[in-house]
Structure formats: structure tokens, C-alpha cells
């Protein structure tokens, strides 16, 4: 087992394409996307359009610790422009043929 980083991003689905692009450019090629996530914003406003047809998405990606710096640099401008939040935490990965750290 070795340390990897977990990246969690919550954003509106219209940003999804842009965010995945940025992740990819930052060297994080794997991810999962959970759609149709209901949510309420920080300020209690229902700014999100999820009630019409734009739902929130919850993106999770695991990466090596070194990839975090480029990810933060690439993602922050997007979040500032379009909204959404990003969190990073430590997790242990079980080594396997396909694991992040085997790259």
C-alpha cells in the first residue's frame, strides 16, 4: 500500500467537460463521475439549476501526490469563474495491476 491523493470536485454539470479536460492536462487520467447529485450551495441559494435540467456532478479522481500541484493550478481558475469546490485528502491505495501508483 502506498499513499495517493483523492481529489473531490463538486460542480454544476455544465462545467464537467472543462473540468475533466483540466484534470487530464494535469496528468490525472482516471476519474469517476457521479451525476444527478442534488445539492444546496454554500450561501443557501438555489443558484444551481439542478431543478431544471442541469444537475450537479460529483467528480472523484485519485492521483499521485506530485500531481496535486498542477491540478490545483489548473482547477482553481475554473472554480473561481464558474463556481464549484475542490477538496483533497490522503488515502492509501491497495497495490494492484492497475493502481495509480503503478503508472
Amino acid at each position, binding site marked *: 500500500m502506498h499513499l495517493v491523493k483523492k481529489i473531490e470536485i463538486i460542480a454544476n454539470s*455544465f462545467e464537467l467537460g472543462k473540468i475533466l479536460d483540466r484534470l487530464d492536462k494535469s496528468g490525472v487520467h482516471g476519474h469517476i463521475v457521479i451525476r444527478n447529485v442534488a445539492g444546496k450551495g454554500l450561501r443557501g*441559494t438555489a443558484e444551481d*439549476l439542478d*431543478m*431544471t435540467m442541469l444537475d450537479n456532478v460529483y467528480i472523484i479522481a485519485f492521483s499521485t501526490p506530485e500531481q496535486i500541484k498542477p491540478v490545483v493550478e489548473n482547477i482553481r481558475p475554473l472554480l473561481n469563474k464558474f463556481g464549484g469546490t475542490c477538496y483533497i485528502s490522503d488515502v492509501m491505495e491497495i497495490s494492484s495491476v492497475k493502481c495509480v501508483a503503478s503508472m
Partner: protein
Amino acid sequence: MDASLIISNILNPPVLFFFLGMTAVFVKSDLEIPPPAPKLLSLYLLFAIGFKGGVELVKSGITQEVVFTLLAAVLMACFVPIYTFFILKLKLDVYDAAAIAATYGSISAVTFITASAFLNELGIPFDGYMIAALALMESPAIIVGLILVNLFTVEQGKSREVAWSEVLRDAFLNSSVFLLVGSVLIGFLTGEHGGKVLEPFTQGLFYGILTFFLLDMGLVAAKRIKDLQKTGFFLISFAILIPILNAAIGLAIAKFLGISQGNALLFAVLCASASYIAVPAAMRLTVPEANPSLYVSTALAVTFPFNIIVGIPVYLYVIKLFWSQ
């Protein structure tokens, strides 16, 4: 005024289920149409109305009337966002004004579909090419809105870089426009034969699915109503008066073009309705500075219910006054 049209509209299942949806929210029932069902229903409605429009386009052909009507439709879709922008700028900043203007320049397909169901029920005919008008009026306002933002922020000394290719794709290839245009084309290509084999699906279910979908729209619109407090009196009045004004302009144009009663109603409804899906989505991407609750709530919680409850029958009443049978 003869209230019977309003009443016969209100006693329609689709409108009544819209009320039922609103009531569910007001009494705090846990009724909900689970996602992604509403999205699926709206895809169905676009598919069905588009296909039917295409099939009927074969019959009517592309006459001078068709060309002029479609031209008028595009012109209105460009004109409305421009003139409303200046009204809105009296009270709001450039970003909000442009986003709301774009919303009202575009159209609501569900309002159109509800009007067409109303016509069907009253036995008033309309032509397939009006669905082409629907498709053509969805996108221009997005472009116009963005141009307005650029013009007026440059004026204020701020420069913006716009990814036009993305904007154009959002405007012309978003799923609603794409499916609608595609279905019209396929309806046109397969013609009457195709129309016949798909009839139980596209026609038989149409009214029922519209009814079910409006139940969801009622839920959605009612949830937005509390946003209106923040919106303020100016925008609420805007959201009722501008549709009336746009419908009036639309009816004048329709009268001038000499199109039939059914087509005139649909044209008026296109002018009067505001987009609450395609344009808001595009605006979030292209004008992120604007406040989405303003443009979504007005379109969804005021203009949409106004049109389907009061607007449609009133516009038809006016048509009946001015058109000779």
C-alpha cells in the same frame, strides 16, 4: 372578454396537472418525478413534435409563406433580446441584463407544445413549418446576448475573450436544438409513411406525456417561486408584461404576413415565451458573471405559468377578434 377560452384551457389535463405539481410543493407533499425521468420526457416531446413537424412539412412544402414566417421568426429572436436589454439595463448591470434578455429572446419548447395541444383539442389546424420556426428561434438570442455583453463591457473598459466555437456549439448543437432539428429532418425524409408507423408512439402518447411532464414542471416552477422575493418587483412585472408585449408584436407580424389562426397563435407563443433550459445553460458558461436565479426564476416561475395558464387562451382570443374566420 369571453372567459370560456381561459376556462377551457384551465380545465385541460395538462394545465390542471401543472397546478397539481405546484400544489404538491405548497402543501409540502413528497411527490417528485425522479430524475432522469423529466429529462427523458422532454427528449420524447422534442422527438415527437419535431418528427410530426417534419412529416407535415412534406405536405405544406416550402412556400413563400413558410419562408417569410421563418424569416420573421429569426428576426424576432434577434430583436427581442436587443430591445429588452435596454429596458433591463435601467435597473440591472450589463451581465444580468444580457442574460435575461437572451432568455426572453429564445423560446420555451414546452410552452409551444402546450399551445399546439390546445389547438389540437379545439380542432384549429396549424402547419408543420411552425416547428421549424420553433427550432430556428432557440439559438439566435444566445449569440445576441453575448454580443451585447461584449459591446457594453468593452465600453466599460473590460475586455473579454470569447471562445466563439464553443458558444456556437452551445447555441446550435445543444441537445434540444439538435434533437428537434434532427427529428424534423427525419420526419421530412420519411414522410407520411414514416409518420404512420410511428403514430402510436409520437401521437398516441403525446398528450399523456405532455400532461405528465407538466406535472413535473409544476413541481419545478413552484420550487422556484421563493426565489422571486430576491428578484424584486421590477423583474416580476417584466416577466409578465414583456411576454404580453412580445405576443402583441408577434400577432401584428402574423396578421401582416396573413398566416392562419393556428400558426398565428404558435408564433405569438414563441415570441412570448422564455427559455429556461438551453439559454440558462449557455449563459452559465458564457456569462458566468450573471446571477442565474434572476434569469431562471423569472422564466420558469412567472413567464412559463403565465403563458400556459393565461397567455395561450388570451392570445387565441385576440386572434379570434382580428382574424376573419
